[in-house]
C-alpha cells in the first residue's frame, strides 16, 4: 500500500512528465504490471488531468496585437523620462552590480573592526592608568611622603 502511494505520487508528477531516470521508470513500470489499482489510477490521471491539455490547440494571435504593441511603444517613447534613461544607462555601465552587497558587508566589517579596536585601546589605556595608580599607592611606604600627602583631616589621622 505504501509502495502504491509512492508510485501514485510519481504517476502524478515525474513519471507522467518523463522526468524519471531509466531505473526508476523501470521500477514504476514493473509495479504497474502487477498492480491493477495503480494502472487504473494512471489511466484516470491521463484521461482527466493530462490529455485535455495536451490536445489543446494554440489560438492564432490576433493581428491587432502587433498594432497595439507598436502604439504602446510609441506612447512609451514619448513619455520616457530622460533622467530615468540616464540612470538606466549608468546602471548598465556598472558591470558589477552583484558586488554591492559584498562592498556593503566589507564596509560593515571595517566599521565593526574599528569600533572594537578603539574600544580595546581605550580599555588598555584605562588598565595602564589604573595599574600606575595602584603602583603609586603601594609605593607610598615612607611616612614622610604620607605626611606630604596628608590633607590634615581627622579621619586621615585616625587611619594613618
Amino acid at each position, binding site marked *: 500500500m505504501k509502495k502504491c502511494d509512492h508510485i501514485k*505520487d510519481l504517476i*502524478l*508528477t*515525474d513519471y*507522467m*512528465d518523463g*522526468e524519471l531516470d531509466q531505473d526508476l521508470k523501470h521500477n514504476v513500470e514493473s509495479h504497474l504490471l502487477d498492480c491493477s489499482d495503480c494502472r487504473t489510477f494512471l489511466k*484516470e*490521471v491521463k484521461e*482527466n*488531468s*493530462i490529455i*485535455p*491539455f*495536451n*490536445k*489543446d*490547440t*494554440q*489560438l492564432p*494571435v*490576433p493581428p*491587432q*496585437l*502587433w498594432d*497595439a*504593441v*507598436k502604439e*504602446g*511603444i510609441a506612447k*512609451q517613447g514619448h513619455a520616457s523620462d530622460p533622467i530615468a534613461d540616464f540612470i*538606466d544607462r549608468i*546602471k*548598465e555601465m556598472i558591470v558589477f552590480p552583484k558586488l554591492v552587497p559584498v562592498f556593503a558587508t566589507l564596509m560593515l566589517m571595517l566599521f565593526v573592526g574599528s569600533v572594537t579596536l578603539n574600544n580595546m585601546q581605550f580599555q588598555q589605556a584605562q588598565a595602564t592608568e589604573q595599574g600606575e595608580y595602584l603602583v603609586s599607592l603601594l609605593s607610598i611606604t615612607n611616612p614622610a611622603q604620607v605626611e606630604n600627602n596628608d590633607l590634615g583631616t581627622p579621619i586621615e589621622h585616625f587611619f594613618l
Partner: protein
Amino acid sequence: MEDLSKDVLVRASQGDMQAFEVVYKASNSFVYNVAFRVVNNREDAMEVAQEVFMVIHDKLKTFRYESSFKTWIYRITANHAINFAKKNARTKTVPFEESFGEGAVESDVHTKMEQEHNSNLVESLLAELNPDQRACVVLRDIQGLSYEDIAQALNININTVRSRLKRSREKLLSVRQKVNYEKV
C-alpha cells in the same frame, strides 16, 4: 518558441523596430497563448500580451545574454499573466461542473467542434486552479516545458514545480470524478 540570433536582439535593443518585429514574430504565439490560458479569457490575454511585449521592448537593453532569451521571455510572460490573474481574481469562465456536468453538450464528431469542446473543457478545468497552479499546468501540459524551465520561468525550485503539478492534477482528478459520480 524560435531561437533568435544575438545580432537581432542587439539591434532590437537599440530601437530597431524591424528587428523587434522579428522578436515579436518568434515569440507572439507563446506569449499570447500562455497569457490566454493563465488569465483564462481572450480580452485580458490581449492586454497582458501587449504589456509583456512593451516590457520586452523596454528591458531588452538590460538583457545580458547570461541566461537564455527564451527563459527570459517565459519569465516575463508567466509573471505578468500570474499577477494579472491574481489582481483580477474574477473568473469569467463557467465552472467545470456547470459546463461539463449533467446536461452538458456531448462532443461533436466534427474536428472543429471537438477542438472547441476541448478548448472549453481546458478553460473550465483551469478555472478550478489558482493562478500559480494554472501557470505550472499551462507551461508543462500545454507548452511542454521541462521542470527545470518551469522552475526558472517562475523563479521557484523544482520541488515546488512538482508539488504544484501534483496538487493541480489531484484537484482536476477529483473534480472530474465528482462529475462522473453525479452523472451515475
